[in-house]
């Protein structure tokens, strides 16, 4: 099974001190009030995903955010997933619908 996380905030089960420190060193931020982790630095994002998989005991993927429609979507529907150097990592992208949808594109262009 694949676990899908949203980079804006996600929960981990309780981890030991060492693991918590390593997560913070890798660039995660922790909100004590909500108990949610979020990504502060993306420099070590591949290691973050590996550590998250290790903690959750399953494959972890992050949702992408579409720059045109603003929706969150997973990489699995993308036609270019095999060629992508950053697949499943939480970076902005264009969702498959928006890429071929002319109407949405024209709305997007009005921003420029």
């Amino acid at each position, binding site marked *: 099974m694949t676990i899908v996380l949203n980079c804006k905030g996600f929960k981990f089960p309780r981890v030991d001190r060492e693991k918590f420190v390593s997560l913070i060193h890798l660039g995660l931020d922790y909100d004590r009030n909500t108990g949610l982790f979020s990504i502060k630095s993306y420099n070590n994002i591949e290691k973050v995903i590996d550590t998250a998989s290790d903690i959750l005991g399953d494959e972890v993927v992050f949702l992408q955010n579409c720059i045109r429609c603003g929706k969150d979507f997973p990489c699995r529907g993308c036609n*270019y997933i095999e060629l992508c150097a950053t697949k499943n990592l939480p970076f902005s*992208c264009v969702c498959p619908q928006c890429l071929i949808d002319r109407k949405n594109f024209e709305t997007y262009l009005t921003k420029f």
Partner: protein
Amino acid sequence: MQKQNNLLWVEKYRPKKIDDITGNDEAKALFLEWLKNKRHTKKAVLLYGSPGVGKTTLVLAASRELGFSVIEMNASDTRSEKAINAVAKPATSYKALDNFTENAKASGNVLFLDEVDGIAGNEDRGGVNAILKVIEESLVPIIMAANDPDIEKLRPLKKVCLLVRFQQVRIPLIIALLQKICMLEHVSAEFEALERIAQNSKGDVRSAINDLQSLSEENHSLTLQDTMLLTSRNKDISMDETLKRYFSAQNIAETSTMLAFSSVDYDDFLLSVGDNLPKRYPDAFELAKAYDYVSQADMFRGRIGTENWHLLKYFYNALTKASAVNPQSYKPFPFITPPIRIITLFWTKSKRNTLDAICGKIGAQCHVSHKTAKHDFIPYIRAILQKKPKSPLVGWFKFTPEEVDFLSKMSRF
């Protein structure tokens, strides 16, 4: 207007605003946060990532938006200790006069050192240390950009900088940008053609825009068929593959295009071509002609050094001509790689080290340079040791038995 039309699209559509930069939103946010609020706690930032992902564009756009004046040193400038001190020190030691005017937008200077991983060779000696010193004493933010931050010489810089990583721009984002440019340039483009350009660019926005312009500017239309002209931007092309395409090229244009896209080391390639030419041209006259071109290329490579890259086209021209002395005579042959000179250097490394140690011992005892020891002393010492291996010289120079053996048996050096 005329001037605007003649511009390269890369420049014409270089984003002026931060929001217009394609991709790397997370890196942009981190950089802006530093430039706005955190530059006092960490004085320098190192932006790193592959070419064409927007590092320089972000610096220029952010500086413009936040009212900074950019003082830039890039790879085309000599960046020795002296040059950096001459430019960077004044730029970072004083706050700009703008700060004291009523211009509310003026924020002062930023020093931007582009392609810091290119600081190399004798011309740039002491460059990294000078940058470290400038960072320590600077009153203004310092921004650096590099393609490869993992090289050894940048390690000290990484310790004092905030690191911001830029990822390759994703294919859908490049397609979206190309669609936008097509609309603004009134180019009617097939989606599949844009898709192919984006895939071929391997995350490099600059090369994608250049490809789009070269394929569609003339006819204002772009079909998938047109993109077949694109040569693959294969950044991992091996030396063997490059040599194969080089020697089998049917004309100068083919070699020229291939060389433009290949990323093999220029020096290794030049040596490999030199080594393989006799196999390529069995005819002595053709071989002589080809070697003449290779020697011209070698001359230009020497003049290029580490900074005169505008001469690279002459280097390529000469190499290209060497490949096309007689295109019809090509017959496949096994290539010699790596170059013989490199193989020889590898095999003789331990011998050279021993000789160097011997020269050092002679130099220390006789107060002469290594060169003098090698040329003026060793021939005589060798002759003496060949006749009398237990000569008192051995003790006086403190030669080890291996060194005595080496000297007695050496035939030439």
